[in-house]
């Protein structure tokens, strides 16, 4: 039976997460001029407050399902600007789960594993990967060489799963994945990228020069399995976008209320202020995205990751954050330019969601191929 209402437990968890997000606001700007710092595991304000993920797991039967509630908790993390308690969402761990053997999973499951796909000149086209892993038959080792950029958790991860061309005299050449532990000779991490926003996110480049890896470090993932992890994460990125957009919209309503700009559901369309109408349009876009995220996560929970539903949610999320944060700065006006209020931060942070984990264009390409029954060769 269709039911689009969250459970009482869902609501309770979200309310607690919102309260924690507001506590985190005290630290929302901690990274603006300290980009080389990393997020603490938890801020002092978290002490004595429940861990909402832990609660969600413990009472999972009373929630709409862990995948749904977890996504909605990320929305709240981003509402705060920084997470009060870090709950890393690293795709490397997802790839390990999808492609690793039980032995590999057992060895690394408790570590933070970054995913290293993007290369200089690569980005939206992973098939153009130039990093290589060459089998050294004499030594019985893989030798990894290449460069990766824009890697989330690069600075803090315990290991990275790297997409590379596997070159082996007895095997068909193809893209595969290799786990490189921090400290492996030849593996180096660049300083943090200087970004417009999301400065609390750890983003750096990785370089591999003759990194020697055992066969056990070869995670038998191909490009398909690696990309499969995105089907789970893309709606989560849409949740990030929802969180930032919600924060920006709330700030706009709150700032403009003294000027008579209030949500109007039955307003006279001829006399409604332009600012009200534009914010109402954004509220509608917000709801459209929210429902699409719920749908994608519900499909994942019931049928496994839905590639297309995920892309649909992500495409809406990316566009939402751009529209909302940019419009909110415009409507609040010059005061929004000041670092005294968070509008300009939302503006800078919100721009990434239509770029990382597949640009809006990549999502539309995937959706178009799906609905048209086209292969990548038919439509690229």
């Amino acid at each position: 039976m269709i039911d689009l209402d969250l459970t009482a437990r869902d609501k309770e968890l979200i309310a607690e997460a919102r309260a924690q997000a507001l506590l985190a606001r005290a630290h929302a700007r901690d990274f603006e001029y300290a980009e080389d710092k990393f997020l603490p595991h938890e801020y002092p304000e978290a002490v004595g407050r429940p861990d909402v993920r832990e609660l969600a797991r413990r009472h999972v039967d009373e929630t709409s399902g862990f995948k749904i509630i977890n996504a909605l908790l990320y929305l709240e993390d981003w509402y705060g600007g920084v997470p009060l308690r870090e709950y890393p969402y690293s795709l490397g761990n997802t790839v390990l789960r999808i492609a690793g053997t039980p032995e590999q999973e057992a060895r690394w499951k408790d570590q933070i594993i970054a995913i290293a796909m993007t290369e200089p000149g690569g980005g939206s086209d992973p098939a153009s990967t130039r990093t290589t892993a060459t089998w050294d038959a004499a030594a019985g080792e893989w030798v990894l060489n290449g460069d990766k950029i824009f890697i989330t958790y690069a600075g803090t991860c315990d290991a990275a799963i790297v997409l590379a061309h596997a070159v082996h005299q007895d095997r068909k050449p193809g893209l595969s994945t290799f786990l490189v532990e921090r400290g492996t000779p030849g593996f180096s991490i660049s300083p943090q990228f200087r970004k417009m926003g999301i400065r609390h996110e750890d983003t750096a480049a990785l370089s591999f020069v003759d990194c020697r890896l055992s066969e056990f470090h070869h995670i038998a993932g191909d490009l398909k399995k690696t990309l499969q992890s995105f089907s789970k994460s893309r709606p989560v990125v849409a949740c990030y976008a929802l969180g930032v957009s919600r924060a920006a919209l709330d700030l706009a309503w709150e700032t403009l209320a003294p000027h008579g700009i209030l949500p109007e559901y039955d307003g006279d369309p001829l006399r409604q202020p332009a600012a009200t109408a534009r914010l109402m349009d954004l509220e509608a876009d917000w709801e459209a995205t929210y429902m699409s995220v719920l749908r994608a996560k519900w499909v994942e929970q019931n049928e496994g990751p839905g590639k297309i539903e995920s892309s649909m949610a992500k495409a809406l999320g990316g566009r939402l954050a751009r529209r909302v944060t940019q419009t909110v700065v415009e409507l609040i006006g010059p005061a929004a330019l000041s670092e005294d209020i968070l509008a300009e931060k939302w503006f800078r942070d919100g721009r990434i969601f239509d770029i990382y984990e597949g640009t809006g264009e990549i999502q539309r390409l995937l959706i178009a191929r799906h609905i048209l029954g086209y292969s990548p060769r038919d439509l690229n």
Partner: protein
Amino acid sequence: MISFAPTEEQRLVCDIAAEFATKTLAPAARAADESRRFPEDLLDSVWRFGLVANLADDPAALSQQPTLTNVQALERLAEGDAAAATAIAGPLGFVKALAEQGSQRQKEKWLSSFAGDAFRAATVAHCDARDAAPASARLTASGYEISARKALVPFAARCDVFLVTAQCEGRTEAYIIPRDTPGVAVAPAIPTLGLRALEMAEVSFGNVVLPHNARLGEERGCDVARILDSARAALGAIMTGLASSVFKYTLPYTQERVVHGEPIARKQSVAFKLSDMHIEIDAMRWMTWKAADEIDKGCSARRSAALARRYCASRVMTIADEGVQMFGGHGFVRDMPLEMWLRNARALSVLDGMVGA
């Protein structure tokens, strides 16, 4: 607990509605648009689909036929012809409001006449600021005196009864006004941009004198917001269905139509528009469902219904407009449905009220 799974019964209703829409409604849509009239047997066949008659026959059916079922059915019907879906959603809004909020006497008086096999018109007239005169009701010794004008009421001349919302002493209420009440005047139907077969006309209520028991719910009064929310959910569903018909018609064409040596669907500028249609039609549906779900649960659907209507109105226009564009000249000529869908999209997206789910 979140679930997007319709019930078995809802699936069945949707399947039947979809087949009826494809076989009966879609083939008749163009002729109805051109002649500005539905054939009588077509309206009767829409009626026999049962959405209205079931509720009128047995108000207990309200729980078996919730708003969630109605919006899913309306979407499928609108995929065949949005005008036909709107035709049935008018009396559905009236009957639903009566069944949910009418007094026992009001239900007995009005509902049985909607339980038959033949189409019957009725409308919820919610006057907004764009109507010629604001609707107002004044308390008198014997009841109420109402003045209102509502433009573009579907099947105005055939309505035996109107449900008119008006302000009375600061509160918005709804009043049941029989067509033959002195002061009720129906203007001749005027040809319209879209939804042409609905014979829309202006109805004016000039100092109409009503007894006390004309107020919906009588002494209890009623929740007018709920009636408007239901209208918005219905409009959202109809616009979703219309957008869906544009998408399904356009998709295969773009794969057949070859320009500069390849199908236009293989060009990103076209393919991405198709992706956006697909993304947005789904979002339109989920927003409409959300509003319907809140209405069924009896909580306030103010925000969800208003935003569903707003989103659907904006998206259906873009989708119908891009549909015409993809067909080029063929989109503009009247032997294909694209231009009709664009006109219907504009008409639907400026309506508020007048229907229900």
